[in-house]
Structures are given as structure tokens and as C-alpha cells.
């Protein structure tokens, strides 16, 4: 087969072809942040960012660094922004401060949709499909996301895509029951351009990652398009892995740690496709007491909202310039002989939240969310509740009580709502969606309570391991902080961790998650339906036999005068009386007419001749013989 004419076309093409190993309009960055936390904990935060200026939608057919599945996602659905979090463990705000990326325990997902002429029904459909796609891509149970556990947040979630000015739709769901493990990490790593072959992702070995106290995988996709011009767009995909190690669990003496200790191996280099590969190590606060080996080649001081952090910066592309085949390691050496109680305690974060379940029994309960403001000034607070359909919440019982810090009991002082959005739930169809906004005075706590009833589920609605209990999703708490204490989240317009340096803003939007709750609904014995059917059938059958007999049969008693007295004679008679050697049991079943049954008159006559005992004996012997149907 020859394609001679194609040669000239190809030659022309070659002249115009502009493509490179690392494309100009697509960039990949990898970052690692190590922050010592209080209580012998270390937070390591990985961020992998791919930013693709793809321009027109047509170009999404041809991917380079961005995974193909993400490009297909934008073609198939009207998704503009997508967040997925897979988390195991609980972030302790009071001692650890705020994380760089927020996540709730279990699986969490939200997405923004936007297109011309998009309707709510279409969004619901796309949302379910989207969840199914990512269920497959990340091997998570996101396929359980549907309309019965999704809400459309009104105030709390703000879009991060562009342009977000016109009509857009949002859906949010979380699955607190989801357990995050290796099967999620492996496909998550496959989305990276270098995979786990090289670069920072090579540190994420499941054996070490899942030994941590808290680990959270995140995936965030957003599009940034020019206003009124859908043909000039940027696709931004951020993959994050946020881990908290408990140093006491690492086999070692003292408080020294190193990359090799944390991840099982040193760093084997950087991802060749990355535009930047940097490690940031916090040097002040709890990081100040450590001596770093090797010392960081550069240091960066960032002041954000009056809060200063010093980071030591290791540029991996510089470290590995001489192309030596070695592993890179950073060791944190703690001063010897230091006492734990002398250590610096971090300042508590301005806002933190907790959640409890009150009430007793399996019928009534009360969900309590406690938000504490340790700042001196009042702060605006937004709380979003997603209560599953099997829990009925009563809006009239909702109230917010306040107590100043330092007092133990909540008084009767209530706080007024500034904002209230309530979408009642519907059995088996919709969850209850509640959003509350209020102003929390400084140095005080707010107690938000709402009474709930638990429904009794149908037996097919129980999940596997039903005795584990049922979850009530974590509440989302949001606020706008006036200062940057403990705050390290990325600014809205930034896409790298480095963009949070010196990013002073009038206020800092903070999001928190409370704990998820677990309730035990009455759990039936799941073999019960079968047992009930069998038992009911047996009872009916047992009752039916006598009723049928009484209604359709006449029982008459036959007495025989020549009944043998002892057992052997009786047996002999039984065997030979029928003329043929029939077994006694078989002989009883079939009675020839008239053999043992006599007309009533004769029976009547026979009655007086025999004594009672004998009659009973005879009854036991061959009861069938004496029942005659007339």
C-alpha cells in the first residue's frame, strides 16, 4: 500500500509543527510542604498542579500533561469546577491549626456546572454521571452519590472558576462512611504526568501513607475562561495529598525525623516534566527547634495578614542538576535533652468547631454544633448542615445559644440568625439542607442545636455491616478571618502553594469541617423475612390441619371386643390380621372401607362392653383405624 502523495503534505506539516517535550501552554508543578505540628506531629503536604491553557474546546481532544479523563470530563459534562476529597482521620484544628486544604473524613465531592440553557434536571443527571465516572477513576464509592444525599449549597460554597457571574449550578455530597486506602492512592497517582516513577509522587508509598494519623487525597479541577470568550480557557488541575505523621509511631528515639523515615525512602529526583519542583520547610514556630541537614539553600519569609512564616526552600531541579544517581534526603534534628513541657505551645486558631449528638434512645436525638471564636472581635459564621433523609430535623427547634469563653454552662442567651436557608428533606428522596449565618461575638462559643427523629429503615436500605451505625454528615463551617494567623490556604487566584506567600488580603475565607456523627438506628435481623415467611407458613399449616379435619370429617370410635391384652399378641395380630405381611406403619395409612369402622348403631352397642383404658390403648395403636369419614 502506498501513500506517496501524503509525503508532500507531511513535509509541509513538519515545517509548521511546533511541539515540545514540555509544551509551552501547559505547565506542571510539584511542591512539598513540611510543617512540624504540636504534639510530635508532622504535616507533609504534596501539591501537584497542572495548568493548561487549552484555548478552544476542540483542543481538549489532544492531551499532553493533563490526564485524558479530565479533558473528556470537560467535553462530556458542563462541569466548570470539581472538588473531590478522600480522607481518613480527623484534622485537629485546636492543636494543629488550619490545614492548607480542607477535607472531611470519608469522601466528599462538589462541582459547579454552567452552560447556556442548563436546567436543574440536567444538572442532577450530569452530577450522578460525574460521580459514577470518578467512582471508576479513583476506585472510590462515589457511585453512591445521587439525589438522595446531594444538596445545592446556597451560600457557603463559592465558585472558584471563571467566569462565574451568570447562572450556575452547584451540587455537594459527602460519604462519611467511605474508607480511603491504597486502591484510591494508586489511581490517584496515575493521574500525574510522571506517575509514581519519579518526582515527589515517588514518596507516596501506600505502606507509609496509610500509617499516618490523617491522610487526605484531593483532586480539584477548575476552568478559567476569558469573559464572553469561551475560546480562551485555562484548565487547572490540582492534586493534593495532605498527611499528618505521629512521630511517636515512627520507630525511632527522640524527635528526629527525615524524609526517609517518613516515606520509607529518599527522593529520587524530580519529575522531568515539571516546571518547578520545590520543597518548603517551615523554619519558625514549631519548626524553629530543628536543625536541618542539609541546610536549605534558600529561605523565604512570608507575612500574610500579620502572621509571619519562614520557609526553607529546596529546589529539587538545582539539587539534581549534576544528574547523579542518588537519593535526596532531608533530616530534621531536634535538640537533645529537651523536655516536652518546655516546648512552645502554638496559639489556638481563632475559630474551631465540634459536633455532638445528644438525646437518648433510638428515636429522638439532638444534633449539636459548637463553634468557638477565640478572637477578640465578632466574626461572621456560616454553617451548612446536610442531614440524611433517615433523620428528620425540626426547624422550629433550631436555636443558637451563646456562652463567653471561660464559662462552662450555656445560658439562655441566644444569637439571632442573620441568614437562614432551609430545604426540608423528603423520605428516601432528599436530604435536609440547612444553612445558617450569624455573627459570633468575640471570645465566645455558639451552640447550634436542632432536634431530630430517626426513621426506621426498610430492610433493603441498610448498608452492609448495618450494626456499624449510620452516619450524619459533618457540618461545614465558614468564616472570613480578618487576620492570617494559622492560615495557609491558597488565595483564590493562585494555583501554587508559593502563591500564598505574602498574599495579604482584606479578609481570609476559612472553611472548617466538624466531626461526622454516627447514630445507631434499630437494626433488624436480616434473615427475618425468610424466617417470618417460613414461620407464618408453618403456623397456618398447623392451624389448617385441625380446622380442616373438624370441618370436613366425622370422628367415630370403634371398639373391638377381641383385643389382645399383651404387646406381643397385639403385634402378632397386627401382622397377620390383614392376611399379608404388611408393615404396621404402612398398614395404618390405608383403611379399606368397613374394616375397622362400623355403622354408628353397632358402635353404640359396642361402647359399653369395653373399659376406658383399653380404648385409650387402642387409640394409640391405630388411631387411623378408628377415624371414619362419613
Amino acid at each position: 500500500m502506498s501513500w506517496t502523495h501524503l509525503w508532500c503534505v507531511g513535509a509541509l506539516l513538519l515545517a509548521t509543527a511546533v511541539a515540545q517535550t514540555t509544551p509551552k501552554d501547559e505547565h506542571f508543578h510539584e511542591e512539598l510542604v513540611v510543617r512540624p505540628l504540636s504534639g510530635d506531629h508532622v504535616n507533609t503536604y504534596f501539591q501537584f498542579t497542572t495548568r493548561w491553557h487549552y484555548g478552544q474546546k476542540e483542543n481538549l481532544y489532544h492531551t499532553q500533561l493533563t490526564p485524558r479523563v479530565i479533558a473528556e470530563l470537560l467535553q462530556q459534562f458542563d462541569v466548570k469546577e470539581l472538588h473531590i476529597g478522600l480522607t481518613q482521620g480527623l484534622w485537629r484544628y485546636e492543636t494543629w491549626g488550619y490545614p492548607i486544604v480542607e477535607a472531611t473524613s470519608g469522601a466528599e465531592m462538589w462541582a459547579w456546572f454552567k452552560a447556556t440553557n442548563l436546567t436543574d434536571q440536567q444538572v442532577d443527571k450530569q452530577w450522578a454521571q460525574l460521580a459514577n465516572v470518578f467512582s471508576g477513576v479513583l476506585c472510590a464509592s462515589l457511585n453512591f452519590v445521587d439525589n438522595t444525599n446531594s444538596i445545592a449549597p446556597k451560600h457557603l460554597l463559592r465558585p472558584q472558576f471563571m467566569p462565574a457571574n451568570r447562572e450556575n449550578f452547584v451540587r455537594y455530597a459527602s460519604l462519611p462512611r467511605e474508607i480511603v486506602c491504597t486502591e484510591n492512592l494508586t489511581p490517584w497517582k496515575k493521574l500525574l504526568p510522571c506517575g509514581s516513577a519519579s518526582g515527589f509522587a515517588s514518596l507516596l508509598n501506600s505502606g507509609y501513607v496509610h500509617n499516618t494519623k490523617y491522610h487526605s487525597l484531593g483532586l480539584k479541577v477548575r476552568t478559567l475562561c476569558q469573559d464572553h470568550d469561551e475560546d480562551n480557557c485555562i484548565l487547572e488541575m490540582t492534586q493534593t495529598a495532605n498527611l499528618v505523621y505521629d512521630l511517636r509511631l515512627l520507630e525511632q528515639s527522640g524527635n528526629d525525623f527525615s524524609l526517609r523515615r517518613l516515606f520509607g525512602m529518599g527522593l529520587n529526583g524530580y519529575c522531568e516534566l515539571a516546571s518547578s519542583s520545590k520543597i518548603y520547610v517551615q523554619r519558625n514556630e514549631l519548626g524553629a527547634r530543628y536543625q536541618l541537614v542539609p541546610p536549605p539553600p534558600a529561605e523565604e519569609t512570608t507575612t500574610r495578614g500579620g502572621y509571619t512564616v519562614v520557609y526553607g526552600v529546596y529546589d529539587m531541579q538545582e539539587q539534581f542538576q549534576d544528574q547523579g544517581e542518588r537519593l535526596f534526603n532531608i533530616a530534621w534534628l531536634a535538640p537533645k535533652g529537651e523536655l516536652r513541657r518546655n516546648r512552645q505551645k502554638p496559639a489556638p486558631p481563632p475559630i474551631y468547631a465540634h459536633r455532638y449528638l445528644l438525646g437518648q434512645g433510638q428515636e429522638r436525638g439532638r444534633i449539636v454544633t459548637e463553634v468557638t471564636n477565640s478572637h477578640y472581635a465578632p466574626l461572621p459564621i456560616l454553617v451548612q448542615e446536610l442531614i440524611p433523609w433517615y433523620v428528620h430535623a425540626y426547624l422550629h427547634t433550631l436555636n443558637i445559644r451563646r456562652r463567653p469563653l471561660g464559662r462552662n454552662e450555656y445560658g439562655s442567651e441566644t444569637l439571632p440568625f442573620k441568614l437562614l436557608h432551609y430545604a426540608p428533606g423528603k423520605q428516601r428522596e432528599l436530604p435536609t439542607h440547612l444553612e445558617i449565618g450569624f455573627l459570633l461575638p468575640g471570645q465566645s462559643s455558639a451552640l447550634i442545636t436542632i432536634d431530630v427523629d430517626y426513621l426506621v429503615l426498610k430492610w433493603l436500605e441498610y448498608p452492609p455491616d448495618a450494626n456499624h451505625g449510620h452516619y450524619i454528615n459533618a457540618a461545614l463551617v465558614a468564616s472570613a478571618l480578618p487576620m492570617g494567623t494559622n492560615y495557609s490556604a491558597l488565595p483564590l487566584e493562585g494555583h501554587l502553594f508559593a502563591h500564598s506567600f505574602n498574599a495579604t488580603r482584606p479578609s481570609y475565607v476559612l472553611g472548617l469541617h466538624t466531626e461526622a456523627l454516627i447514630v445507631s438506628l434499630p437494626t433488624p435481623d436480616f434473615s427475618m423475612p425468610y424466617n417470618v415467611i417460613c414461620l407464618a407458613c408453618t403456623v397456618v399449616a398447623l392451624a389448617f390441619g385441625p380446622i380442616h379435619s373438624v370441618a370436613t370429617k366425622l370422628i367415630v370410635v370403634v371398639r373391638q371386643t377381641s383385643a389382645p391384652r399383651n404387646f406381643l399378641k397385639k403385634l402378632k395380630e397386627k401382622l397377620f390380621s390383614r392376611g399379608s405381611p404388611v408393615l404396621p406403619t404402612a398398614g395404618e395409612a390405608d383403611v379399606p372401607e368397613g374394616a375397622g369402622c362400623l355403622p354408628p348403631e353397632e358402635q353404640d352397642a359396642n361402647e359399653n362392653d369395653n373399659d376406658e383404658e383399653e380404648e385409650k390403648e387402642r387409640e394409640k395403636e391405630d388411631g387411623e383405624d378408628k377415624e371414619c369419614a362419613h
Partner: protein
Amino acid sequence: METTSVSTVKPKRKDKSEDKYRIGATIAFIVVIIGIGVPMWWKTTTVYRVTLPSNAILGLSEQPIKTAVQVAIYTQGSSRAQLLIGELQSAFNESEIWNVEFKHLPPPSRSNEAHTPAALEKLLLQEHPQSVGDFMFIEWPKLQEEVLLTTERSALIRSDTTANKLAQVLHSKILQTYRINQILSTDDRLGAKSEAPQPAYDVIVSVLNPKPRLTHAQWNISMAVKTYVEPWLAQVSDISNYTVRTQWKYRVAIEANLKQVRDESKLGRHYALQEADLPHLLTSISQNLSASTTDKPAINLVVYIPPCKTAPLHIYNSKQQLLTRNGVDAFISPPWGGVIIANPPESVCLAYANDEQPLPYHVSTTDNMQVMLDQLHKLLDISSELQMEGVKTVDIEQLAPRRWEYEAYLRRSAIRHIATASRTLQSLINLLDQISYIVINDDVAAAITSSYADILAAKVALLEHRLGDASALAKRAFVASERGFFDASLLAQLYFPDEQKYAIYIPLFLPVLVPVLSSFNMLRKVLQNLRKEKQH
């Protein structure tokens, strides 16, 4: 016991009047249990199943798929044409698959004006227009070969070409009888291995560059695909729709056993990839091609750029012979896709061998795209590879495939769709007969009946010489039959098979039915007694 013994003391007349009630009660029990209870239980526990044209579907294979084709023959002398037609007709008379209609074309009015075969063909076509699937033999005495197949629906023949040769060409090239036989064969050993074409495919072109730091390969793959693959696929998308996507993949680990072989090149060596290792290579490649959000089947076209450490890489067979032809190392594995090994140029790897800075270079678009198009031809099963003595085929001059080849593909796909759809429906009906708990809901039943109707219509269209219609109908029948067969609702009762139904209800029915059935015996006796009394 006490009450019955008392009742027996009562006179006979009283007993007789009670007999009436007992008989009434017995009949009432029988009516309630057998007349109402059992049918109601049967009705409520029965599996929902819409009635299907089962017998008609099972009888589908009795009626063979027969295709009508019109073959026109033009010769300069009409007696030769008659002779050829007569011989060809006798050759095709026996055929169970083909209903070939041979037509003799009279010389066109201005035949002496035609000085080239193309001009003659044009004149003939003006007078006798062809429809889809037709074919034409034109005699052209000055021909070198016995038969020359053009890119349209025609072939030129020499004056001395025998009818036998024409029949051979028709069978093996134009109609491809042996492949149709493969499709229709019910014998698994002879049956076609490839599947029926699906309505939509993703064609995914992946460029694998395992060592991006050392191999600075540059290639505007999107442009290459837009220039070569997409226009070609657009020409053949009557049966399936193709969406072309490209992706780059880096740091892909290839697990294959490579052996270094000394040679005379500047590098002094190349690497050998054993033919037997290709499946392993394919496995490690397909693991790394990322997931898809659609459920369309994918055709993977992989361009693998070996790093200089193991380049150039060539495929060897088990006899240690180099399999590289014209500098191309490529293989396909239908229906998964194909792999091209695009070795970097020698200069690039020389630089690597001398520890110099990696040289950026462009991957050749024309070389790789030609191979890729050829692979696509083979994967989609459009081209006819068969070589015959004395028969030559005109080379393709544009992107579109040869007309007769493509129409043979249409015909083959239509027959394959009909055959597959019939088999699917038949196995579904057989399954329904064997497994009683399969649910057939209204949607599935609609899909099955519409598929059945389309199969019949497609068969008629094939016989009536309407290839375009037949192809569309057959595709629709195929899609509907697949939808019916794979519908999830079929298995709604999977976990409650009949055995369980009986097992659960036996504790009820056994004790209830035994007395009820035995009371029949009693009724019989009572009737006998009544008859006796009447006789007395």
C-alpha cells in the same frame, strides 16, 4: 373426641343432615385453596415476562441470508459477453449466499470516442448508472494483467480473461465469499474471531515517551492526526462513528525482555524484542493508557518511542530473524489496536552514547502516520489483503478507501450484524426457556421485537439489492439486540430463583394441600354412596 362420640349417639337422620355441611365445607376448602389460593400465589410470585415472538426468532436461522448483487459485463464483442455471462451464471447458480445478476452492457453510443479505460467507464456509467454494491467488468484489450481492479466499482479485463478467473475475482475480492462463510459458520473453529463493528469507537492515539528527560522527542500529534487519521475515518464512518483523541504518556515502564544485538551501524548495536514478548509489551502498555469517561470501545494506536538506552529496537521472530520491513517496526492486535515502535534517529542516540546534551528532534509524521493508517485499515478490517495471480489492484490515490473494497466492507458488516443479532436473540430465547427467573420487561421486549423486525427488513433489503438500507437496518437490529440482551433488568430476580420460591412455600403448601387433596377421595366416596342410594 367427647363431642364426636356424643354426636355418634344421635340418630342417623341428624348425621345425614350434618353430612351436607361437611361436604359443603370440603368443597369450600377445595375452592378457596385450589381455585383461588394457588392461582393467586402463582400469579403474585411469577416472574414478569412479556410475550415474545419466540418461535419466529428461533426460526430466523432457517431462512438464509442471501444478498443480491448486480454485475455488469461489457465486452467489445457481445458474443463473448454472453459466453462469459453464461459461464459465470452457472458458477454462481449453486451459491447459497449470493444472488448474482449478470447483465450484459451494450456498447455505448459513442464508444469509439473513448480512448482510455476511464473514459469508457464514464460513458458506460452515463448510460447504465450503478447503485451501491454493484460491480462492472470492462474489457480493455491492451491490458497487461488479466484483471485490473480500479478504485471505483469496476475492473478491467483482458480479451483472453476466462470466466473462471472472473468468478475467482468475484468470490475472493469483490464479494469475499470465504469471509462471509466465516461469519455465517456456526462452527467455532471456522468462525470469525473478530467482533461485529460497534456503532461508536474512540480512536486513541497515544505517544509513549518513557524518558522525557533524555529523549527530547517533539511531535505535533494533534496536527498529524487531523491531517491523516480524521479525514480517513470520516470516509468510512457509515457504520461506526469515530472520535479521535491523542495523548502523550511519559514515564511508562515497559516490561519486556530486550536483548542487545551487535550490528554494523554507527551505534554498533540494536536491541531485539522477541515476537513472543509482544503480548507482555502490550499488557504493560495498556495498563498505562489512562481511563476513559465514556463506555465506547476504544481502538488504541500507540507510538512507542524507545529511550536511547534501548534504541533502536527491532522485533525478531522465534527463528531469530529480523522482522523490520522498510524501517517499520509495528504490530497490531485486533481489536485492541496497534503499536508502532518509533526509534529515535541515529544521531540522537549517538549524542546520548557520547554523553552529550540530549538532541531535540521531530518524530516523523509521514512515516508513522502511513503505518498508522495501514494499521487502521487492518483493524477496521476494510482492506482486502488477498493476492491473486494475474490480478492487480490500482493504488489508492486519495485518502478514501477503494469503492469496491468499502462496499464489500458494508456488505460484510451488514451480514455480520444480521448474523450476530439473530444469534443474540436466539440465545436469549434459549436462555429464557432454560432459566425461568429472567425478567423481560416492556422496554426489553420492545428492543427484542424491534430488533427482530429490523433483521427481517434488513434481509429483505439485502435480497432486494438495497445495500445502504440493509446496512442501516442491520446496524439498528444489532444495537437493539445488544441492548435487549445486556439489559440489567433481566437479572432483577437473580437472587430469588424458583428453587427458593418453592423451598420457602413448601412448609405452607405441603400440609395444606395433603388434606385438601385427600378430601377429593372422600367426595368421591360420598358421590358413590349417593349413587348407590338412588339405585336402591
